[in-house]
């Protein structure tokens, strides 16, 4: 979103003026001046919202804009500090999700919240088992489950064990669960994040089906193309404030991005490499990771940032976990022209290949530990050559890392879990660099962190390769890849489907390669 997202203030003003002011139809759900404060931080500030029956309303905004907080308030998971909610003219005062459900509001969560050990049917009816005289009525539940699954086009059997079905089907089961009862408002929190082309299309059909039955849909998505196709109304949040609600399809994707960001973005991404990339550093031929990756070959050059794009489940993470010995894999790999094969992450680290995981809290950092032990965990032998640990060396290392990567900490003895997401990510980057790698693989460099930290991390990544290293960036954020990388490879279903570089490094090209089908118009709307 670098150069082309430069804001013309007048355009933003003009857009703001086009916001919807009043409705002629009585809203089914009305939120008035919702405010949420956590301590001193205000995450939502006087947001008002009208939802009409049979309306698809998209809520868009950057990370931290307050979308999820707003949705959690509306569905009873979070209590607002101030403000009121009306449902069909009756004021609600719910404190619990069950009360919101009774009032007719359902939330489809972003995370999968299903019991893996139970069947699809048991999950659908969890907490509301149908039965007579204390006995579960399995036959009736199975019939209803089958009906509901068929309705949303989910092919799994009601008696399948949830742990054994694919992620996308789990998401559909979760949607089926939310739609089991009749609701007046259904909230979808980024439902398509884990779905691929065909499933996204089916979900959109489900949503249009809800609309045709007069049910209102609130839809949070980062995919502006979807928003443009589906939404009757687009509501924009920024920094916890309501920017406005706009009629759908009058906004281009660029307009939406402008409203979401609302400020100069030119400096978000660093300058690209001025000189062409050097000699090959890492060359991978015919990589296979059983169950995930088939026959992948690529070459990484010195001084280059190579992007890996694709949908979740395309096998990008698994490819690199396989290459560095975190999971079983076959490949012929050459590092600096010498053939190598890594049996363990240790061997890869020692050879100079470092991997930064996408899951910083689960796999990257020991949240209960202090900063220094986290920083040095993968480089203990390098920092402490002798028999025992030297505190002074650790202290010097963390001091240097905090300064170099601008990690904002209250004290050096803070625990990693006390840092903000952005600072955790910078600590993790510092940790990955402790082994002094020549190849750095970064999986989702900026997931869930704010824009200021994002810009810093992009600059650090560019600095790594300017120093003569080579870097691979895996990301689900296409704009990020376009902004940061010199060249992008696109994966789908475990294979590389193409390369986007130079003029072809566009979202449309990447999306095309990642899905191998133009995301077709469902309602109306045109692609940009």
């Amino acid at each position, binding site marked *: 979103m670098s150069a082309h997202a430069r804001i013309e203030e007048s355009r933003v003003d003009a857009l703001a003026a086009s916001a919807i002011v009043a409705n002629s139809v009585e809203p089914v759900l009305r939120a008035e001046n919702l405010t949420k404060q956590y301590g001193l931080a205000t995450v939502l500030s006087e947001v008002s919202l009208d939802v009409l029956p049979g309306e698809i309303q998209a809520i868009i905004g950057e990370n931290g804009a307050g979308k999820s907080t707003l949705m959690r308030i509306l569905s009873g998971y979070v209590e607002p500090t101030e403000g009121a909610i009306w449902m069909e003219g009756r004021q609600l005062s719910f404190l619990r999700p069950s009360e919101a459900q009774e009032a007719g509001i359902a939330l489809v969560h972003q995370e999968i919240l299903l019991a893996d050990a139970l069947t699809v049917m048991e999950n659908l009816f969890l907490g509301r088992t149908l039965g007579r005289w204390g006995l579960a009525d399995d036959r009736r539940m199975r019939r209803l489950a089958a009906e509901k699954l068929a309705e949303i086009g989910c092919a799994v059997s009601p008696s399948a064990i949830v742990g054994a079905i694919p992620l996308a089907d789990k998401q559909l089961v979760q949607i089926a669960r939310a739609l089991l009862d009749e609701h007046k408002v259904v909230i979808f929190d980024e439902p398509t994040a884990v779905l691929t082309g065909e499933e996204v299309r089916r979900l959109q059909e489900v949503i249009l089906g809800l609309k045709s039955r007069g049910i209102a849909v609130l839809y949070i998505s980062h995919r502006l193309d979807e928003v443009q196709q589906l939404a009757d109304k687009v509501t924009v949040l920024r920094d916890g404030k309501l920017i406005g609600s706009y009629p759908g399809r009058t906004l281009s994707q660029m307009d939406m991005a402008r409203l979401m960001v609302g400020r100069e973005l030119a400096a978000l991404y660093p300058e690209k490499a001025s000189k062409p990339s050097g000699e090959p550093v890492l060359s991978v031929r015919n990589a296979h990771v059983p169950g995930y990756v088939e026959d992948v070959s690529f070459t990484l050059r010195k001084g280059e940032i190579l992007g890996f794009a694709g949908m979740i489940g395309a096998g990008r993470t698994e490819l690199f976990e396989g290459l560095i010995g975190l999971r079983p894999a076959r490949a012929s790999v050459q590092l600096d022209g010498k053939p190598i094969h890594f049996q363990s992450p240790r061997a890869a680290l020692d050879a100079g290949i470092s991997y930064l995981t996408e899951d910083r809290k689960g796999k990257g950092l020991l949240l209960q*530990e202090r900063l220094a032990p986290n920083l040095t965990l993968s480089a203990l032998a390098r920092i402490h050559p002798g028999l025992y640990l030297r505190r002074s060396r650790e202290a010097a290392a963390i001091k240097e890392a905090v300064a170099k990567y601008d990690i904002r900490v209250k004290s050096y003895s803070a625990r990693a879990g006390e840092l903000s997401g952005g600072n955790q990510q910078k600590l993790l980057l510092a940790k990955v660099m402790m082994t002094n790698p020549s190849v750095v693989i970064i999986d989702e460099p900026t997931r869930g962190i704010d824009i200021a930290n994002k810009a810093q991390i992009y600059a650090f990544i560019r600095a790594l390769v300017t120093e003569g290293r080579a870097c691979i960036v895996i990301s689900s954020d296409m704009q990020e890849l376009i902004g940061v990388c010199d060249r992008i490879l696109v994966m789908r279903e475990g294979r590389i489907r193409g390369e986007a570089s130079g003029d072809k490094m566009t979202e449309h090209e990447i999306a095309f390669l990642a899905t191998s089908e133009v995301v077709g118009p469902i309602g109306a709307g045109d692609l940009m």
Partner: protein
Amino acid sequence: MTLLADLSPVRRIREFNLTWSDVGPFLALVALLVIGFAINPEFLSTTNLANVITRSAFTAIIGVGATFVISSGGLDLSVGSMAAFITGVMIMFMNRLAPDLVGWAIPAGMAMAVLVGLFCGLGNGLIVTVGRIEPFIATLGTMGIFRALITYLSDGGSIPIDRSLRDLYRPVYFGTVAGMPIPILISLVVAAAGAFLLYKTKYGRECSAVGANEDVARYSGISVVRTRTVAYVIQGVCVAIAAICYVPRLGAATPTTGLLWELQVITAVVIGGTALRGGKGHIWGTIAGAVILELIANLMVISDLVSEYLVAAVQGTIIIIAMLIQRFSK
């Protein structure tokens, strides 16, 4: 674009912020001594304390090993029957050598004990790590195996130490060095070595990391299999050291030797502040925990407040309270 600084500058590099799990066991120990003195001044006499702490030495020594296993995210239920098995093998070995070697049979027996302990620990470790079996189940299995082996070796009776060795071996439990009972000295040495290993070496750091979050450790290039297996080997060696000290006190290995020690040990580790879910281990806390357990038993015997038949109930209550404190002090 402006990058706003939202935090104050970094403060000094070293800070001591102690938590309840760091100091709690020692505070409890002091409180117990004060209560004991109030009930019966005889409680604080050197003789009584030396007796009590000597008795706690086995729990303490095995507890040091258990601190490694538990902080690496494992558990070992087999320590009690492993101690009995090692004692049995050791005594049989010494008795066999005694006619030829006389006194030298004892160090040979001790070396044998350490070797057997090492292999028992290695077996436990490999079953858990390479075999990928839950530590609870794996060591429940070996617990039964070791117990059956000692019953078999002793033919259901007892394996007494040879007469010619009894007096020579006696000082290992009953002797003193500079007034300090030898088992106490040994447990202090074991604890100091354990603390050095756990807090000051790369292995110790890796052990805690594996216990705190196996995935983070794996992604940081640490071999989880090696680290956990080594923890079980350390546990096995600690059990052997405890068994070596224990031989003179009983004079024989029997099928009931070391019965329920695993519960004593796990209790000592947990009230010492080490979390059962893994992560940070507290070696000195474990020592304090072992002493606390014996002090309570002693207090119940020398006072008439509660019947000494309820010792196990009181210890059970303490482990539950310790867990509750760990949960709610978070």
